[in-house]
């Protein structure tokens, strides 16, 4: 007569056997990768001695809190502004012709040099001098460039910004 039974004897030894089996696998793995593991242990020891490991561990344990703080910092308007400015500037830079930039920078350098020299002389400029200077081909070229630059900026300001498109 087989009565229905629901009781299962706890497999106490089973657990230990399982552990032993798992351990065996790990040991095998260690043996196969001995060189790499030895190096890694050295590295870990260095990190431990210098306290880096402890810092890293704590950082990872507190990862959610840390991430929250980091994201919170990133969300402050000055930071988002900076990121946006950086991204906008980067975007603008990609559209400039490098040759022109080179010319412009060169021109600026020379202009600054010249201006510096003239300032040293402490000379006053009158209306007549101004008229005369406008006829100078170098000054005229710079004026033309500046006037059209102003026109371009003005047109750029007229367009609605990305956000309100």
């Amino acid at each position, binding site marked *: 007569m087989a009565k229905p039974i629901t009781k299962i004897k706890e497999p106490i030894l089973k657990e230990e056997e399982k552990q032993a089996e798992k351990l065996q696998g790990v040991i095998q793995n260690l043996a196969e990768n001995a060189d790499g593991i030895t190096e890694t242990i050295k590295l870990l020891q260095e990190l431990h001695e210098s306290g880096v490991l402890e810092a890293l561990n704590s950082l990872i344990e507190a990862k959610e809190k840390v991430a*929250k703080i980091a994201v919170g910092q990133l969300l402050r308007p000055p930071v988002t502004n900076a990121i946006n400015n950086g991204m906008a500037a980067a975007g603008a830079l990609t559209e400039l012709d490098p040759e022109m930039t080179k010319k412009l920078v060169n021109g600026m350098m020379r202009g600054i040099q010249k201006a510096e020299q003239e300032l040293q002389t402490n000379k006053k400029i009158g209306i007549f001098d101004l008229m005369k200077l406008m006829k100078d081909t170098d000054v005229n070229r710079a004026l033309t460039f500046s006037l059209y630059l102003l026109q371009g900026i003005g047109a750029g300001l007229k367009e609605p910004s990305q956000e309100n498109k």
Partner: protein
Amino acid sequence: MSELVKVKINGAEHEVEKGTRILDYLLQQEMEHPHVCYSEVLGPIQTCDTCMCEIDGKIMRACSTEIEEGMNILTSSERAKASQTEAMDRILENHLLYCTVCDNNNGNCRVHNTAELLEIEHQTRPFREKGYEVDMSHPFYRYDPNQCILCGRCVEVCQDLQVNETLTIDWERQMPRVLWDNGKSINESSCVSCGQCATVCPCNALMEKSMLGEAGFMTSMPDDLLTPMVDLIKAVEPDYKTIFAVSEVEAAMRENRIEKTKTVCTFCGVGCSFEVWTKGREILKIEPTENSPVNSVSTCVKGKFGWDFVNSDQRLTTPLIRKGDEFVPSTWGEALTLIADKMGTIKQTYGGSALGFVSSSKTTNEDSYLMQKLARQVFESNNIDNCSRYCQSPATDGLLATVGYGGDSGTIKDIEKSGLVIIVGANPTEGHPVLATRVKRAKKLFGQKLIVSDLRKHEMAERSDLFLHPKQGTDFVWITAIAKYIIDQGWHDEKYIEQRVNQYSEYLNLLEKYTLEYAEEVTGLPKEQLIETARMIHEADGTSVLWGMGVTQNVAGSHTSAAIANLLLVTGNFGRTGAGAYPLRGHNNVQGSCDMGTLPQWLPGNQRITDDKLREKFEQAYGVEIASQPGLTNIEMLQAVEKGELKAMYLMGEDMAWVDSNSNHVHETLSKLDFFVVQDVFLTKTAQFADVVLPAAPSLEKDGTFTNTERRIQRLYRALDPLGESKPDWWIIQQIAKYMGVNWNYEHPSEIMDEIASLAPIFAGVSYDRLEGWDSLVWPVQKDGTDEPLLYTERFNFADGKANFSLVEYVPPIEFSHEFDLTLNNGRLLEHFHEGNMTNKSKGILYKLPEVFVEVSPELAQERGVKDGSLVRLESPYGAIKLRTVVTDRVQGKELYVPMHSVSHENAINLLTGSVGDVRTQTPAYKQTKVKMEVIKVKGNRPLPLYNPRYAIRNPQLGVQVERKWAREDYEPIADVNRTGVTN
């Protein structure tokens, strides 16, 4: 078949079949084209507007525009592109792209992929929330209105594919959203948890809860971190290309840790296939695809969400051996040695006939085949049966006698195409949910007619054009009377009968007494209803009859099954599309386990054991003599145990103790066995009687094939490793053979299938290569791989190719003494499977349907003073149970209904059922049970929670109704042409 037209697509000439949808053609030609809401199954929904093309200068949708002669189609002209971009912009106003931290970022997100395809860099309309809370109320899925793009795919599947009619979009409110029953929480709505809405959602608005925080590497972060991160991305505004690039890296990382494995569902005979997504042992979700041959994107609650049992802590993980009053865990070696020793000794002492083998209709074909091989070859016993004995044997018998194959005569496609579907004694919305959806869809969209004959007014009965409620066990009479009436009216197919069916004149003689008057008297059905039924069959373009346990579990279920085949023969409804006989197989592999010869009188491939030639073939292959005498059925095995003739049993994957009728008696008999081996996933009631319990691996942990109700053979692949020391059934059986000294040496189930193909002609062309991935075969399969989805187009399966009218007679139901005054109907409910061993491990399912109950009609409740939640005692001549009541008009008069999903001594239905069985197949007459009812306590808690969908009212409408969106004042058309009323 139809005419070809010439069109220009982006300047190139194409010849296309007229009437093809542009989008279908583009996809066929593998020309990438944006689209979000369209699906091959659902057709053009027309809500997303991303598929715009320029056609002859007009902007039109590729999804709803059919190709016509001379069209000039530009898919990416400046105007087309601008329209597509505008459409996407409107979508992104409704959907925030935080892809990297979204659980739907798995490479298959349609919104993500379409935005990327359209090279969207920025959006002009900023994203804004809709102002609704996320609905987390349902146990299995959630809806986030703020991520919902209002494409309406979920509404389309709910309304027109699943046809549960719960979801709508309220297009008129200021901020439209998807609604459940016009505004209830999901949990309190009429939602039946089929999960199709979550499956087809093109983004993360509808998601399986099992995915949340699990699928991504960064998606489990808490809300107070996630929200600022999303805000950061918004504030910083990188272009979307950067977002997509980052999210794709993350999606690629996910692919490394999420496995997607194709499997076949084990919860009924429909044979749904889908991918199961796993992460380690965790099941993330079930993902059906349009590639699935039977179900496409459809599932039911069990198939989509019912897999918790696989990782249940109650799983058996080591063999157990009975020692005293406890089971002691053992090694495989110990257990197998003991089995071989005990069973070997019994075989030597008493012969093979003292051993019985019970196979399962839930294990694979390969498992089943080996089980019968173990019985017949190793133990030389024909005592092999399976649990279809408890359900489907009578249907098989009726079909074998008349048309020659014991299986569905066509496929689910034929059921869909039928002009008229008649369902007799089956409740497919609960027992075969996905198959039922196809009938509901055909009825709702394509005018299919539906007749339901049942005791109980279940959902299909509610939806039917004609509901017949005959007296219990009298179906044979009305079916036969209708056949007679049809012939009397001259509505029969005379020529068909003459050319294709034998025994017509004898059949006419039999019919004589089955007049409408006689039928009315026996069945209680009014004559008018019978005439109406006959007329509907006569007028229909193809009739399919679907039947289940309401027919088979009677004293003459086999006769009624034959009567159904007779009726279909009279009207020429075999061998044509959209017609035929469909016994709905209850379990995933009822068909397969029978095909594999786990039957006392059949060898694999439905070959009779009494046929000397066929038997010889197997004797040669197995190298033993096989007795020509059929063995014992399940029922006869237990009788033989009682007589002391059967000493030992080996049972695989069945909880016979609760599933066989008259449980008290079965329990007593099982305890009398000298030696009993049970192989299962859990320590079932049956296993508790065993001497050795072997831990088996469920379907997700093994390779193999299942054969569904259509006769379709499909492969399942191992998605998980077997848990602990559990093993696939075929492996276990092979070990037993080995310990008995027979070496089979199968290394993979594919080798077992090769052997089956070599011995069973109907499987001749079946191989794992031909069943790769989503491919399937519907038997009989010829050597060259040609299969036969539709049977009998040319010949019936008899030597002369002709069918036979069955000449069996009506057998009236069992009589009970007067004190047992209530008819006790019993069967399934949607949420649970069989006795419940698998589904009662699912928290979500138990939450929705915690316990069994008895349904009582309002009339009877009033008469007996019973209320919702009253505790009653039901007593039959065989036993008694105690459960709570649900008062409902699903049942009427003195008829009760008790679901079978219980493994409790308090309320398992089979404590009440008796031992009398079908006259031909011995299938117990579960449905012919009468009881008396005693009220124990009137007041009590409702056993069915108020958030069970059965209390809610559906909200039917056709599709998502995009016209209402177009009618909004703030809707600016993108297309030059908006065509309404385009359905698939």
